[in-house]
């Protein structure tokens, strides 16, 4: 499993949300709450080790017309980067 060390992005991340340890549905619910507290165009990085979140977090973002910049599924921990 290639571990991503300090990978650089060509965008600036404004918020970071680490949801490791939270079971379903709380990663998705917390993320939706986070969007409500962000301004349009701001970017959030979300970390979750709930495998189910792959069906939730990107879908919720798309449903709200937020842009999914990155989905990374290498191991048990998933990463999502979303632009509101």
């Amino acid at each position, binding site marked *: 499993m290639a*571990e991503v060390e300090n990978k*650089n992005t060509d965008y600036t991340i404004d*918020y970071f949300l*680490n949801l490791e340890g939270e079971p379903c549905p709380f990663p998705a619910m917390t993320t939706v709450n986070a969007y409500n507290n962000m301004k349009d165009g701001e970017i959030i990085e979300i970390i979750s080790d709930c495998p*189910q979140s*792959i069906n939730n977090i990107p879908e919720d973002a798309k*449903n709200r017309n937020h842009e999914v910049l990155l989905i990374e599924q290498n191991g048990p*921990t998933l990463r999502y980067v979303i632009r509101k």
Partner: protein
Amino acid sequence: MNRLRKSWDPLIVVPILGVLSAYFFGFTSKQWAVTGEFTRWGGHLMNFVGVDTSKFSYFKLIKFQGTPLDRIDGVMIIGMFIGMFVSALISNNVKFRMPQSKTRVFQALGGGILAGFGARLAMGCNLAAFFTGIPQFSLHAWIFSIFTVLGTYAGTKIIQRPMFQSKIKMKKVHKTTLYSIHDKDHTTRNNWLLVLMAVLILFLFVIEYNKQSLFPLVLVFGLLFGFLLEKGQVCFTSGFRDLWTAGRSNMTVAILLGMVISTVGTFVFIQNGIPATIHWAGLNTVIGGFIFGVGIVIAGGCETGWMYRAMEGQVHYMLVGVGNVLGSILLVLVWDQIAPFLAYNAPEVNLLKVFGPYGGLIVTYIGYGIMALLLWIYVRWYFRNIKKQAPTNITQEA
């Protein structure tokens, strides 16, 4: 290989599960179901602590005899657990995850008990009284589904209370590097466990082949069911609950599509003489469905949902499983007192008998049509509503 590691779209996986569940019925004359077997495990547990299970009529009702290895449901469920574990290993989803707070432990056990109790009161869970129950043309499955939907709505109101919310807050940052994820490299461990599972599967094939020639096939079905549930992260709870929490309907649509597909197959088998499983369309189904709905939302997963998550190493869902078995034991203990006026007096309604074979089929598909229409209306309404609310959120923030 990469495709095998990534998770699969539920919109493809659930219809395949629908087809397989119809075939399973064709081969075994049994619905794909799990909670009945978990109740029998409760029975084994009661025997183990010295309780005489022969005096409880519920165990006669669900034919409690032998060991899991001698029962179709038992063999199938063992297959499911192994299939889930194999899928989780291939997907590199196996990680020991401990509950983060006492609240979550309470939710897992309490919700699990409610779900187990409710499911058995209604004679089925998200499978036997919904996903594989409606395709059996049993009215009780429709009643169960309606009250489960209501129960999940009530459950969502409960888990939306502040005490259940995640304590984790987002942090304001300003960075151009991604967080480095500290997952250990589990490749070697996972490969060894896969080898171990292969040996176990072969071993089970031999044992089961010597019991009954059908059993190895049942094991294959179990393995496939389990593998697909984990691969697709198929969560029936999500199919209901997330409509209320986020207006998300991808899982709901997938499940509906799965039932639309499996109903035809099941119908053909029933027409060719395999008896449909019909249960009491009574108050037990109404109450059981509602309690089940509340329970699965509090727990965070229903029967099939906790199974694959437990195999991924999520301790929370192992507790849900324990709760389920405890809840089913509770139901067994009270069944003889409540069944005479909640279940035994209610009719067992077979839609294929009430409306005739093709009439019953048409009525069922009209039912699916209504479900799809309601879903479409609800989701549209939901997103219109949050658009209206959006400006208020921003002003609150400012």
